[in-house]
């Protein structure tokens, strides 16, 4: 083809030490060789050590029954019956449970404090500033120990704090009313799903309508649909969903939803700590949008809310996404400190597993694999998002 004629000639490797490419090649071979040698040496000694200690390698232990008592499980688990694999899966789920809720709450709290730091009210701004400065400079582990200690000084269930009807705070954790599952609730749930879909379609229709005629449609029918349809179905079926209220039986509470002291302490600690970093990110994000943008949008007749939504936030988001990603990653990794206060996340359960089975290498490899997967997923998602919203420059 003619194209290949136009291609630059490939340089041939000269066998001379003054050729930069040859040097590069030699260096690479040397470095990689050294690393390979090191790995080979470590692997050999490790294999030898394991053999003398009669530890079998491999992941066969995942199928063995696990005598680990686990307090918080999202899926069924019976100690000494269920397998190690299942126990570890519960650990992963618990890690996800704390990470997802933590990221959401930290974002909310951090955003509020970041905006608070920019408030015209001097006292509010100063207090938010003190929050950021203070919490960042104290190790998270220490904060977790403090929160956990605080949970333990709460009164026993019999004298539980009772701030709201149905809410009990004691050293066994926080009990709140939960939605009770009754026959017919499935239909209500289905109605809710349909209503959500309907609301979504309505919103899309309204947007199209606005494009076509300039006048959008009100959004209250959508809200009415989401609230009304499930309620109507519930009434029609006579199955008004009830609340499962916690009540004291003997020494402890029954019913309702339990948030364990470990989970609560870990959540508060992670959220409060991460929020101090997120606040700074949000603040600098907002400051990065020049006042000129506000003024130009206002001069065009847009109201404050519309300016914020259409002009300022989309721009602030671009500045905020990359550092926010690393904060989310940090929060997920920091959730591993759960092991210090006895919340059974993946690190805690893997640690117990490796102590019981002696499978140290496999246990640690599992922990790392789980975190690498989570980290990679978050990074990939946020990178994709960041590319999608990137500004076009010259």
């Amino acid at each position, binding site marked *: 083809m003619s194209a290949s004629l136009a291609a630059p000639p490939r340089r041939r490797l000269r066998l001379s030490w003054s050729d*930069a*490419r040859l040097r*590069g090649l030699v*260096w*690479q071979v040397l*470095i*990689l060789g050294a*690393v390979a040698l090191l790995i080979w040496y*470590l692997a050999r*000694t*490790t294999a*030898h*050590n*394991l053999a*003398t200690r009669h530890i079998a390698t491999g992941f066969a232990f995942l199928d063995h029954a696990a005598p680990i008592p686990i307090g918080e499980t999202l899926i069924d688990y019976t100690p000494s019956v269920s397998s190690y694999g299942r126990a570890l899966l519960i650990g992963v789920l618990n890690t996800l449970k704390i990470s997802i809720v933590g990221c959401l709450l930290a974002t909310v709290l951090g955003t509020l404090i970041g905006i608070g730091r920019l408030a*015209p*009210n*001097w*006292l*509010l701004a100063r*207090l938010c500033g003190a929050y950021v*400065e*203070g919490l*960042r*400079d*104290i*190790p*998270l*582990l*220490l904060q977790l*120990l*403090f929160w956990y*200690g*605080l949970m333990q*000084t709460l009164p026993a269930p019999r004298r539980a704090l009772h701030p709201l009807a149905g809410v009990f705070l004691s050293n066994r954790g926080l009990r709140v009313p939960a939605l009770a599952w009754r026959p017919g609730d499935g239909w209500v749930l289905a109605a809710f799903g349909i209503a959500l879909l309907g609301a979504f379609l309505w919103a899309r229709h309204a947007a199209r309508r606005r494009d076509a005629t300039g006048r959008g449609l009100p959004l209250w029918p959508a809200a009415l649909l989401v609230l009304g349809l499930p309620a109507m179905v519930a009434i029609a079926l006579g199955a008004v969903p009830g609340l499962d209220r916690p009540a004291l039986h003997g020494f402890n509470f029954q019913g309702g939803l339990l948030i364990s002291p470990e989970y609560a302490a870990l959540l508060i600690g992670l959220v409060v700590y991460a929020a101090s970093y997120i606040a700074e990110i949000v603040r600098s994000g907002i400051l990065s949008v020049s006042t000129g943008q506000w003024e130009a949008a206002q001069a065009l007749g847009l109201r404050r809310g519309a300016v914020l939504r259409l002009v300022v936030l989309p721009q602030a988001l671009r500045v905020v996404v990359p550092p926010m990603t690393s904060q989310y990653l940090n929060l997920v*990794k*920091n959730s*591993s*400190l759960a*092991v*210090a206060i006895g919340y059974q996340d993946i*690190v805690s359960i893997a*640690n117990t597993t*490796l102590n019981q089975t002696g499978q*140290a*290498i496999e246990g*640690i490899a599992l*922990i*790392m694999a789980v*975190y*690498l997967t989570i*980290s*990679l997923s978050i990074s990939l998602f946020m990178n994709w998002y960041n590319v999608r919203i990137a500004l076009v420059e010259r």
Partner: protein
Amino acid sequence: MSASHSSSVERAPTLALGAPLSRAAFWLRSRLFATPVSAVVSLALLYLLLRWGWDFFGWAVLHAIWQVPHDAAGLPQTGVCRAAEGVGACWAVVAEKYRFILFGFYPYAQQWRPAICVLLFIGLYAASAQQRFWRRELALIWAVALVLIGALMWGGFAGLPLVADDQWGGLPITLILATFGLAGAFPLAVLAALGRRSRGMPAVRMLCVCYIELIRGVPLISLLFMASVMFPLFLPAGVDIDKLLRAQIAFVLFAGAYLAEVVRAGLQALPKGQSEAADALGLGYWQKTMLIVLPQALRQVIPMLVNTFIGFFKDTSLVLIIGIFDLTTTGRTAIDEPAWQGFGNEIYLLLAAIYFTFCFAMSRTSARLEHLFSRGQRR
């Protein structure tokens, strides 16, 4: 505007109302009571601040217990503290335990040695924060000081009894882990950052990327576990590295990956022209890197390096989980004793104050340097 116009100057309307207001009143009005909403927020915050402040003052000072009596066997009688629980702080626990918290199981009579080490560390930090000390000699001073610290801690010469490192504890351990970790990680980080940016050596680049991303993708705890349970398996029988050193190695690996990214940011920020100019002068790769590229790139990221170091300093507390007696661990151990159980808050406050002092001083330094650099750049 200018004073010559003062006769024609009308007062701003906000001031013109009522009697002449002082500057303070004007300030209060514009910063705290500008709008009704702002006024409500201010009052609510002031109320909470005063109330909680007063409660805390009552707990920490007014009703606090500073000393407890000891019985015949020398054991502390903490009954008074128990009686005051929730009302007043029991600072007696601090008075009783501060030596243990600061220095751990280091022999009591020899604790002046770690104390001097702590002072040496603080002196080193303080000197390094001053720009006028940034000379070649500083590296020498660091080397000498670190050797001196090691010698003092171990002893075994000049009549100083030998103290094995499993007896060390408290603040010196925290400082050692952080400082030696940084010192070890720095060269590693520079190499990894250079490797990651090397165009001509894809295999080396991949290796560096793997190292950096692998370490940054997993929590520090998993590395510490690795150090405490896996490292012994790596070594041939008979060879044994002690726990502190293993943790230190884990820290170096960990810090190296994060610092590498900081260094890389500095390398990236350097205008391409610098490297091209060095090429044009005929400098070789290492000459170019050591003389032109690195000095500028590193200088650029000093504030970021300090911030990263603050992170490591706080992260050293994680060794609690593998049972190394750093400051956090000694603090926690202090309240394991039955007599002192339940007085965690007092101890945690003390620990928080110590960590805060170090970190706050460092973050101020970082902010100051950043300010300085950005000013220097504009010129």
